[in-house]
């Protein structure tokens, strides 16, 4: 199966790889201890299925003990052992390797091998998602192949360009800038993968990549981001779109350090003054949902019925009047004590959709009497400004993972992701309580109230969550997509025997 992708991988080593293609490929070469099931329930043990670990127990509130599957083998024949897990933890946490995932492993104090197939994780405190942190972030590395390489040189070692793993697929070849080929490991201990070969074909230009897909030179694409290209695929035969929730949501974040935007009432009025449904429809058509809050349909805390601020320009206008912001004439900029109601919105030039949405939002706010200036900035420049807190409002896109703890990453005071300096005790209390619930059923209502609190406080206007549309040729059957990782279930997919000349 040929996968069309617009970016080449950087390096195929899980602790270090940061580019999407690199992650997709290395995810199939290296395994986790356990995987999330389709429902992405991160809290309950029942939400996981065994992979490298055949089973696990919780002997006390601070420990998880994993029993490794004795059938698991590295692709050079050596069995997967507890020492590999210990080694892997060391690599991920080593500051010299500087893995971006290291901060997420902080609650894990130590990892020790109890015997060759048993490994114990000791946590610093109890919380319901211990199993998530123990399994989701790390992919186990082969100690016997890597421990002779000093950690500082791991990223640039040749292993990263020709990795040996324990997953359903084996590395075959990597033509830099061109293609990466993997072959199925027919002896994989959890069953032979359905598709014999996977080839990632790198085409930087999106339109050309879609052309390859439509022309039969590629069979699949993870996501087609541009509405114009989506229309092309829809109009064609032989290629179908499969929608799945994306791990993104985007919103206009207000900087509460600025006196103007520190006012909760003002922010609420701004949020109520935007017709989010229309914005989403005109920029994306059908390919995105209005964000119900700081979440996307991928997470289990998501619900259609979360309470949000209504779209009510009359109420917004009234609220602004009450605050003293008056317009001299309908459609004019509101003023209070002579000062105009004005702020600047930063938008990254890398995102066409955010630029378009910003323009529409600006237009709607202008009708409400709010003067918004749009400042397009290059991505890294914008990042620096928001990190410094040097902005009024910023059109941000957030990436989340299946765990609701990502809410804390972006909205907790003191967290680097909380660029707008949002700080509300009610939100703190709710999230802290949610983090103490041992089951999903118990935690769900608390998370829901936390999301509703966020909506009510309006630290941002949550605008949209794009729907990822993957494209597949008719040759690919039995496709299921786990939203956080589109190839997670690829071993169950099938390829219909097609063109014999393609040699698959």
């Amino acid at each position: 199966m040929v996968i069309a992708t617009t970016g080449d991988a950087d390096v195929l080593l899980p602790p270090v790889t940061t580019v999407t293609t690199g992650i997709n490929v290395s995810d199939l070469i290296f395994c986790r201890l356990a995987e999330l099931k389709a429902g992405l329930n991160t809290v309950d043990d029942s939400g996981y299925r065994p992979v490298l670990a055949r089973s696990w127990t919780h002997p006390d509130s601070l420990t998880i003990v994993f029993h490794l599957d004795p059938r698991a083998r590295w692709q050079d024949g050596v069995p997967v052992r507890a020492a590999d897990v210990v080694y892997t933890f060391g690599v991920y946490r080593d500051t010299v390797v500087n893995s971006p995932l290291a901060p997420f492993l902080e609650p894990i104090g130590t990892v020790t091998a109890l015997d060759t197939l048993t490994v114990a994780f000791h946590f610093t405190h109890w919380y319901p998602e211990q199993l998530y942190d123990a399994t989701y972030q790390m992919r186990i590395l082969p100690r016997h192949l890597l421990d002779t390489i000093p950690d500082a040189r791991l990223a640039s070692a040749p292993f990263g360009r020709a990795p040996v793993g324990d997953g359903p697929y084996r590395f075959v070849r990597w033509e830099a800038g061109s293609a990466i080929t993997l072959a199925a490991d027919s002896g994989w201990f959890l069953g032979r993968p359905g598709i014999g070969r996977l080839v990632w074909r790198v085409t930087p230009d999106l339109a050309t990549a879609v052309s390859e897909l439509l022309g039969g030179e590629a069979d699949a694409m993870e996501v087609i981001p541009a509405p114009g290209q989506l229309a092309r695929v829809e109009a064609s035969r032989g290629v179908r779109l499969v929608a799945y929730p994306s791990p993104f949501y985007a919103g206009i974040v207000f900087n509460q350090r600025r006196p103007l935007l520190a006012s909760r009432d003002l922010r609420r009025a701004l949020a109520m003054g935007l017709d989010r449904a229309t914005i989403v429809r005109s920029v994306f058509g059908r390919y995105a949902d209005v964000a119900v809050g700081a979440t996307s349909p991928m997470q289990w805390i998501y619900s259609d019925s979360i309470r949000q601020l209504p779209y009510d320009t009359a109420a917004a206008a009234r609220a602004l009047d009450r605050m003293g912001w008056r317009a001299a004439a309908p459609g004019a900029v509101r003023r209070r004590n002579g000062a105009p109601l004005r702020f600047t919105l930063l938008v990254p030039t890398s995102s066409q959709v955010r630029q378009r949405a910003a323009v529409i939002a600006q237009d709607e706010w202008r009708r409400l009497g709010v003067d918004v200036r749009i400042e397009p900035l290059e991505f890294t420049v914008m990042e620096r400004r928001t990190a410094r807190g040097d902005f009024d409002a910023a059109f941000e896109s957030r990436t989340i993972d299946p765990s609701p703890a990502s809410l804390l990453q972006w909205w907790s005071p003191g967290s680097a992701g909380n660029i707008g300096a949002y700080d509300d005790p009610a939100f703190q209390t709710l999230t802290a309580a949610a983090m103490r619930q041992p089951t999903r059923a118990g935690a769900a209502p608390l998370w829901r109230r936390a999301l509703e609190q966020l909506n009510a406080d309006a630290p941002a206007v949550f605008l949209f969550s794009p729907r990822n549309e993957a494209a597949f040729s008719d040759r690919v059957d039995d496709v299921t997509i786990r939203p956080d990782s589109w190839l997670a279930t690829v071993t169950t997919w099938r390829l219909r025997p097609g063109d014999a000349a393609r040699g698959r």
Partner: protein
Amino acid sequence: MSPWRVAGRRFVRNRAAVAGAALVALLVLVAAVGPLCTGDPLAQPDPVRLQDRPPSGAHWLGTDPYSRDVLSRTVSAARVSLGIGVGAALLAVTLGTAVGLAAGVAGRRTDQLLMRGVDVAMALPRIFFLLAVFAVWEQAPPVAVALLIALTGWFQTSRIVRAEVLSLREADFVAAARALGVPEGRIARRHLLPHLAGPIIVSASLDVGNIILLEAGLSYLGLGIRPPTPTWGNMIMDGKDVLFSAPWVALAPGLALILTVVAFNLAGDGLRDALDPKARA
């Protein structure tokens, strides 16, 4: 009859050249007054309902994904593209002539110094330099774009001019002027410069086309003049994504671009044929 009259006659007799010149004049006219007759190129009257509309009575060339009128933008872009093209060409030619002339009339050491500088500068890969500068300089104004393109493109002109000056220096009329005691500077200005005018004009007019294409390439990559200010290059970039659903968005600026470059090339060819007595086609 003065050589200029002769050249003029030759030019007028060349139909292609006349067509080119007429087209250039038309384009300049459109660029100058066109934006006054068409709508606002930045206006987004209805970003929701008017995106990607095909050509109609209200919008002769349709609208783009931001609901902007394609005709207004294409005409507006003419100002930017022509302005940068002509401006940068003039600047580059002036710089090249100045340096070439100086090198040609100066003493050996100055000449060596200048020409070595030119050689070093010529090795600079222009596109990398421009890419790097404009990748970083986001809000570069058109003047800056023209300036940088000119600053990286005058070297060939200086070599040509220097070569011409060197060969002219040995000519009889120059020797005569020198014998009469005319100062070097005056010789350069009054006697050499008119003879250089021919190659310079030809070089400049053919340069315009290349510069317009270079600027279009830069803005197609998302560098240089960025949206919302329209240039033909960034309009094609905008239209690339909707090439199949709304082809007019990329087609209009693309055709305008090609037409403009063709016009300048035709006129430039005509000028070269008219001014250069050797090329008797």
